[in-house]
């Protein structure tokens, strides 16, 4: 029986995307670091890990389009770089999102104890940031 799409292991060289709200300024190239650690802060529904998108399954535009807000930047990270920081990156395919993956240590219940890890991602890995690209509510008045 074939494994469901998205369940194959994530290689170290695999590229992953993190969706980051375009406003407020989570990303500011004039700030230090340019990408805020808040961009990797888990939200209330990140119960098993911080959500990422696998580039082999989704484009940056497609990853942004999954977000409920009007626009998103996409932070680009490499799985092996996250693992070098001691983080665990696993596939977690969803029915409507086979490219869904997670950083298992960064969860809503650990949001206050993983600040250093989130800062290391932004300060040491210095993710490339793409976009902004439209989200689901692009063009709508908040």
């Amino acid at each position, binding site marked *: 029986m074939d494994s469901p799409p998205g369940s194959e292991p994530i290689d170290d060289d695999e590229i992953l995307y993190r969706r980051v*709200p375009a*406003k*407020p*300024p*989570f990303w*500011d190239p*004039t*700030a*230090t*670091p340019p990408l*805020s650690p*808040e961009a990797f*802060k888990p*939200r209330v529904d990140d119960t098993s890990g911080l959500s990422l998108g696998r580039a082999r399954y989704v484009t940056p535009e497609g990853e942004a389009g999954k*977000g*409920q*807000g*009007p626009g998103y930047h996409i932070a680009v990270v490499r799985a092996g770089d996250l693992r070098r920081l001691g983080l665990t990156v696993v596939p977690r395919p969803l029915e409507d999102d086979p490219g869904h993956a997670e950083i298992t240590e960064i969860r809503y219940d650990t949001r206050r104890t993983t*600040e*250093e890890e989130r*800062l*290391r991602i932004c*300060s*040491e890995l210095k993710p490339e940031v793409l976009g902004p690209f439209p989200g689901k*509510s692009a063009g709508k008045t*908040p």
Partner: protein
Amino acid sequence: MNNTIEETRIEPSLRTRGAEAGSLGTVLYRTDAVRMAWESVIDRWLIEWGRSPGLVSQYGLVPATPDIVVLAVKVARACAEVGLAPPQRVLPDGEGGILFERGEGDVFEALSILADGRIELKSFKNSKLVSEGPLSLVESV
């Protein structure tokens, strides 16, 4: 909203260890440029979020209440009065609070106005937390 800066001051109950000059947690100097930078924070972000919390909630983030926005404005003005370095970035923390962030070299600091009204300052050096503690906003009667 209190426009009399002299009536509020911020007193750090914790002196950050290892904080570099010019960081959030150390006194810079009281200049018009510093005050203007903090006023820019207020005008550009805090007032806008206070008027339109939907700008934050549209991303699924919990916006700050008007009371927290007012508190953040007071904190910003008190920081300007003391001469603390202005933040490079102002963000919602996604849980009803507001965050002022500043980094320089290998030092990163985050001043949080939390949803419950507490004010905290955290300092990191080489991504390691080196100090954290509450700040007190003292208002004259």
